[in-house]
C-alpha cells in the first residue's frame, strides 16, 4: 500500500477497538514469567553452552599477549576465543567501534575474549583466568578539553543575520549547559543464543530492529543475509541500546561455530556501560535575543558532542531548535569531537532529550529576564502554520499552545510564585517549572502478513518488535478493527526475521509505521476475501465476524483459510510537512533547604501525538519517559575518568536510575487530535516525546524553588549546596 496523500475519512474514524484503552495482550505471559526472553529460551535448541565475554582492561592500545592456557584447562571449558588470534570481524552501517577480533583496543571493555563452558559458573570462572598484557596508548577522553578542536558536522542551519539581531536585541541571554553521558540501563542486558546448522545461523536475541540486525550480521560475519535468522519476540527494554547488533550477538555466533554447538551469552551488567553504546555528553551554548514584548529575534544554539574516530555523529542536541520557536535570525550548529570513549549511539530521543535540557531552561531564563510568565513567552513565540524560515513547509498538526494551556490549567500553574525562592513548606523550598516538548514523528516502510484461519481466527506476522512498548496490543487492535473481529480472535507473532520486514522499534516511528503496515496487510486480505466471495473488499464493512457487502452478508469464515501480505510505503509528500509531536510538561519539586535533596512531587505531561492507539500503554510510555527524565535531570551520569578513559560507575549501584520509590504523582493527558499526514491511522508515536522536556521542567522548578540556576546536569546537590539559603 502506498501512502501518497494525507488520509481521508476511514474506518479508524469510527473505531471500536483502536484508540480504546486495552490491556496488553501479552501481559499475562509477562507477569507469570512465561514470556520467552532471549537468555531463557532453553527450549529453542538443545545442548546450549554458556559464553562469558571478557572486556578490555584499557581504553586504547594493543593487546601484546593473551594467555588463555589456564582458562582452556579449567573445568567445563569447551572453547576459548581470543581476539588477538582472530581476524577482526567486519563492520556494518550500524556500528563504528569494532565488535571483536584483532589486537587493537579502541575502547574500554571492548570484547577481547570469550570462554564457552558447560555451565555459566564455569565459563565465568575460566574467563577470570585469562591473563592479558597491553601496550597502552594515549587517548582523548575529555569532551571539554577537545571541544575547541571539534569540527562542525555538516552545515550550520542559518537564517537572517543572527549576529546583528543578537547585538541589537534589548534583552539577551548567553549561557552554556552541560549534559552528561547516559547509559540505557535497560532491565535486560544484551543477550543472544546462537546456533549453526551448516551455514545457517539462528540467533535468538534481544534486538529492536530485526532486519537491520540480520543485514548487519551478514556484513559483520561475512555471510549471506539469507542464511541468518534473527528472532526476538520479547525484549526487556532497549531504549536505543538494542537498535544495533552488539558483541553478545557477534561473539555468540563466533563462539557457537568454534564450540560446534549452540552458545548463549548475556553481557554481564558491569560491561554494559562501556562495551555497548551510550548517549554522549553535550556542551550546549545558547544565545537568545528578544524584544521587550518577548518576541525572540535571534536564536543561536551550538552543540558540542563526540563520537569514536571511526565514525558516527555526536548527540545532536539542536534537533528541536529550528522547529520549536519562531524567530527571524538563527544560527544552529553541531560540532563532533573524536574521542576514544566507547561508541555513542541512539538513546531514547537522541538529540532532543538533552537538547531540551538546555533550550527549555534557556527559555525559562529569558522569561525571567523579560519579567514574563514562561507560558506567555512561549505563546508569543509560537510559529505560524509553517516551520520558521521554511514557508513551504507546513506543520501537519501542531497544538503546542493547547498543550501548554491545558496543562497550566490542570496543574494549577497560576498558583506559581514567579519570584523564586519564596515558597516554603516546612524544611522544603517548593517550586514549579514547565517546559515545552517536541520530537519528530518519522515513519518507515513496514510490512506484515495476516492470516485468516478457517475458524475466523486472525494471525498477524511481522518482524516488528515489542520492546515493552505495547506493540503486540496495538497491532492486535489494528487487525481486529480492520478485519472486524473481537480482539481475542487475533494472535500476534513478532520479532522473527522469517516474517515480513517492518519498521522495527526506534525513533518513535514504530507504533505509527507498524500499525499502518498491518492495516495494509489487512486491506490486502480483505480484497482477497472479496475476490473469493465476489465482492469489493474495500467497499465492504467487516464487523462482528461478518462482512456486509452491498445487500449481501457473509460470515468471515465463509472465506476459508487464506493469507495476505503487504507493506505500507510512505510517500514523498510527507517531506512537505513537518510532522512532529508536541507536549507541555509541568513539575513541582520540593528542595530540602538544609541538604539540597530534590523531591519531585508532581509531574504532568500533556501530549499532542495524533490518534492515541492505546491510551493505556501510551500512558505507560510517557510515564516511563518522565521517570527517565527524572534520572536525566537529577542523578544519571556516566562519570568519565579521563586518565583511564572509561565510565567508572559501570553498574547500577554507581549509575543511579530512579526507582518506584522516587516517583510520586505523575499524570499524562493526551489531546484528542488526528494527524492525517502521518499514516492511515493518523497516529504518531509518544515514547520519545515523553523524555523531551520533563527534565527541563524539573530544572526550572528547582530554580523556582531555590533561586539557584545550575546548568550542569545532573542537578546533584553538590553543585548548589553552597548557594542554598544560609543556616539560621
Amino acid at each position: 500500500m502506498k501512502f501518497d496523500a494525507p488520509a481521508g475519512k476511514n474506518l479508524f474514524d469510527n473505531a471500536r477497538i483502536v484508540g480504546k484503552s486495552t490491556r496488553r495482550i501479552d501481559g499475562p505471559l509477562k507477569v507469570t514469567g512465561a514470556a520467552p526472553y532471549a537468555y531463557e529460551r532453553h527450549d529453542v535448541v538443545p545442548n546450549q553452552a554458556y559464553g562469558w565475554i571478557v572486556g578490555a582492561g584499557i581504553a586504547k592500545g594493543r593487546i601484546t599477549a593473551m594467555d588463555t592456557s589456564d582458562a582452556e584447562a579449567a573445568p567445563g571449558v569447551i572453547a576459548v576465543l581470543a581476539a588477538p588470534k582472530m581476524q577482526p570481524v567486519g563492520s556494518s552501517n550500524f556500528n563504528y567501534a569494532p565488535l571483536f577480533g584483532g589486537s587493537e583496543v579502541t575502547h574500554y571493555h571492548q570484547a577481547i575474549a570469550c570462554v564457552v563452558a558447560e555451565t555459566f559458573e564455569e565459563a565465568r570462572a575460566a574467563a577470570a583466568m585469562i591473563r592479558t598484557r597491553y601496550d597502552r596508548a594515549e587517548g582523548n577522553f575529555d569532551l571539554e578539553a577537545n571541544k575547541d578542536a571539534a569540527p562542525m558536522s555538516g552545515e550550520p542551519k542559518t537564517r537572517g543575520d543572527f549576529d546583528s539581531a543578537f547585538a541589537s536585541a534589548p534583552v539577551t541571554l548567553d549561557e552554556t549547559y552541560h549534559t552528561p553521558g547516559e547509559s540505557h540501563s535497560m532491565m535486560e542486558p544484551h543477550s543472544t543464543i546462537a546456533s549453526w546448522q551448516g551455514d545457517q545461523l539462528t540467533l535468538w536475541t534481544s534486538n529492536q530492529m530485526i532486519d537491520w540486525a540480520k543485514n548487519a550480521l551478514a556484513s559483520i560475519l561475512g555471510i549471506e543475509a539469507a542464511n541468518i535468522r534473527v528472532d526476538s519476540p520479547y525484549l526487556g527494554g532497549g531504549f536505543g541500546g538494542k537498535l544495533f547488533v552488539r558483541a553478545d550477538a557477534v561473539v555468540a555466533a563466533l563462539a557457537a561455530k568454534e564450540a560446534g554447538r549452540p552458545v548463549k551469552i548475556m553481557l554481564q551488567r558491569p560491561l554494559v556501560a562501556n562495551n555497548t553504546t551510550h548517549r554522549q555528553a553535550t556542551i550546549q551554548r545558547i544565545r537568545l535575543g528578544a524584544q521587550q514584548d518577548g518576541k525572540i529575534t535571534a536564536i543561536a544554539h551550538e552543540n558540542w558532542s563526540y563520537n569514536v574516530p571511526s565514525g558516527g555523529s555526536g548527540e545532536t542536541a539542536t534537533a528541536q531548535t529550528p522547529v520549536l520557536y519562531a524567530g527571524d535570525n538563527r544560527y544552529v550548529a553541531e560540532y563532533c569531537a573524536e574521542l576514544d570513549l566507547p561508541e555513542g549511539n541512539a538513546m531514547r530521543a537522541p538529540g532532543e532529550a538533552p537538547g531540551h535540557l538546555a533550550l527549555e531552561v534557556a527559555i525559562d531564563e529569558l522569561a525571567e529576564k523579560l519579567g514574563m510568565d514562561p507560558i506567555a513567552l512561549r505563546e508569543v513565540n509560537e510559529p505560524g502554520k509553517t516551520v520558521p524560515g521554511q514557508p513551504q513547509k507546513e506543520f501537519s498538526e501542531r497544538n503546542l499552545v493547547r498543550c501548554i494551556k491545558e496543562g497550566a490549567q490542570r496543574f494549577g500553574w497560576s498558583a506559581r510564585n514567579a519570584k523564586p525562592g519564596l515558597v516554603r513548606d516546612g524544611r522544603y523550598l517548593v517550586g514549579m517549572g514547565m517546559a515545552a516538548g517536541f520530537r519528530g514523528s518519522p515513519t518507515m516502510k513496514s510490512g506484515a502478513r495476516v492470516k485468516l484461519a478457517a475458524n475466523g481466527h486472525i494471525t498477524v506476522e511481522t518482524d516488528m518488535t515489542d520492546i515493552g512498548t505495547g506493540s503486540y496490543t496495538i497491532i492486535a487492535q489494528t487487525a481486529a478493527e480492520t478485519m472486524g473481529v473481537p480482539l481475542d480472535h487475533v494472535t500476534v507473532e513478532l520479532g522473527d526475521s522469517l516474517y515480513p520486514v517492518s519498521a522495527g522499534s526506534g525513533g518513535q516511528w514504530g507504533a505509527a509505521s507498524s500499525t499502518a503496515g498491518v492495516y495494509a496487510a489487512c486491506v490486502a486480505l480483505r480484497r482477497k476475501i472479496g475476490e473469493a466471495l465476489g465482492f469489493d473488499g474495500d467497499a465492504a464493512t467487516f464487523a462482528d465476524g461478518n462482512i456486509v457487502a452491498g445487500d449481501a452478508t457473509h460470515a468471515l469464515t465463509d472465506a476459508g483459510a487464506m493469507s495476505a501480505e503487504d507493506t505500507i510505503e510512505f510517500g514523498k509528500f510527507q517531506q512537505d510537512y513537518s510532522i512532529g509531536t508536541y507536549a507541555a510538561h509541568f513539575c513541582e519539586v520540593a528542595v530540602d533547604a538544609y541538604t539540597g535533596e530534590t523531591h519531585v512531587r508532581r509531574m504532568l505531561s500533556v501530549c499532542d501525538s495524533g490518534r492515541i492507539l492505546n491510551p493505556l500503554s501510551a500512558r505507560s510510555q510517557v510515564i516511563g519517559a518522565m521517570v527517565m527524565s527524572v534520572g536525566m535531570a537529577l542523578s544519571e551520569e556516566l562519570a568519565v575518568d579521563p586518565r583511564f578513559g572509561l565510565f567508572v560507575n559501570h553498574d547500577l549501584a554507581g549509575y543511579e536510575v530512579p526507582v518506584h520509590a522516587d516517583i510520586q504523582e505523575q499524570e499524562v493527558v493526551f489531546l484528542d487530535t488526528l494527524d492525517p499526514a502521518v499514516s492511515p491511522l493518523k497516529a504518531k508515536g509518544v515514547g520519545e516525546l515523553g523524555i523531551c522536556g520533563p527534565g527541563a521542567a524539573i530544572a526550572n522548578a528547582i530554580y523556582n524553588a531555590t533561586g539557584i540556576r545550575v546548568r550542569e546536569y545532573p542537578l546533584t546537590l553538590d553543585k548548589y549546596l553552597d548557594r542554598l539559603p544560609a543556616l539560621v
Partner: protein
Amino acid sequence: MKAFTYERAKSPAEAAAAVAGREGAKFIAGGTNLLDLMKLEIEAPTHLVDVQDLALDQIEETSDGGLRIGALVSNTALAAHPKVRKDYAVLTRAIVAGASGQLRNKATTAGNLLQRTRCPYFYDPNLPCNKRVPNSGCAAAEGFSRQLAVVGTSDKCIATYPGDMAIAMRVLDAVVETVTPDGKTRTIPMAEFHRLPGDKPWLDNTLGKGELIVSVRLPAPVGGQHFYQKVRDRRSYAFALVSVAAILNDDGTGRVAFGGVAHKPWRVEAAEALLPQGAGAVVAKAFEGASPTEHNKYKITLAERTLAGVIAEARS
C-alpha cells in the same frame, strides 16, 4: 567466581577454628555482600564456613538494661524489635534507611558491620586499588571521588565505610562481642572496630583471622531524641553521601556520628561536646584536619547542613 568448598558450622568455636585453620577460608552469613564480591573475584575465598546454623539470631535484654543482638539477627528483625524501636530509635532509623526490604531480610547484623566499601574503583579489577590488591595504587585519589571519604583518609586509600547501621551503633556506644579461634571471647567497642585506612587499607577492621562475631551489645538506653538522616543522590535507595546519627537531649547536648565521610563511622567526642553551640562548631571540630578532594569537599558543608537540619528538628 572461583570454585570453593563449603561447610556449615555447628558452634561458634568450631566456626572460628574452621576459618582460622584454613588459608583462604571465610565466614558467610546472609551472603548479600560477600557473594557479589565473589562474582567479581574481588573476594575469592577457597572455603566458606556458613554460620547460619549457629543459634545467634536472638535479641536478649542484658542485666544492665541493655540489649544483646545475636550476630545472625536480620536487619529487618532488628529494626522492627519493639525495644529497639522504643529505646534505640536511631538504630531502627539507620537500618531502614539502608539497602532494600529484600536485602534487609537477608542481611545479618554481623555481615552488615563487615560490608565492604562502595568505592567504584574497588569494583573494577582492571584498575589500581590498594584495598583490593595491596600496594597496587589508589585510582580514586585523583579520580572520580565525589562519594568518597573526606576525613581520616590516607594517601593509600580514601574509601568510606558505606553502611548505615554501624553509624547508629557507634553513637549508641555498641560493643562487638567475638569468639576467637582458640575459643576465647573478646569485646571490641565500636569506636575501635573499624580501622582507618592508614598504610594497610586492605584491612577494614580489627578482627583477627577466624575471629567470629557472636553478638553486638548495646548499653542501657540513654534517652534523648533519636535521629538518622541520610542524604543521597537518589532519595529512595543509594549509599549515603553523608549521614548523621544523632541523639539530642533537651538541654542541647547530645551525641553525633557521621556516615559516608570516613573509613569508619565518624564520631569525635570533643566535637559533639560543642553541640550546644550548633552544627557549625561541631562540624568544624569533627572535620578538623580533613583532606577532601575537589570532588567531595561539599561533604563537609553537607555534614554541617544536615546536622543543622537535625538540630532544628529536635528543637521544633
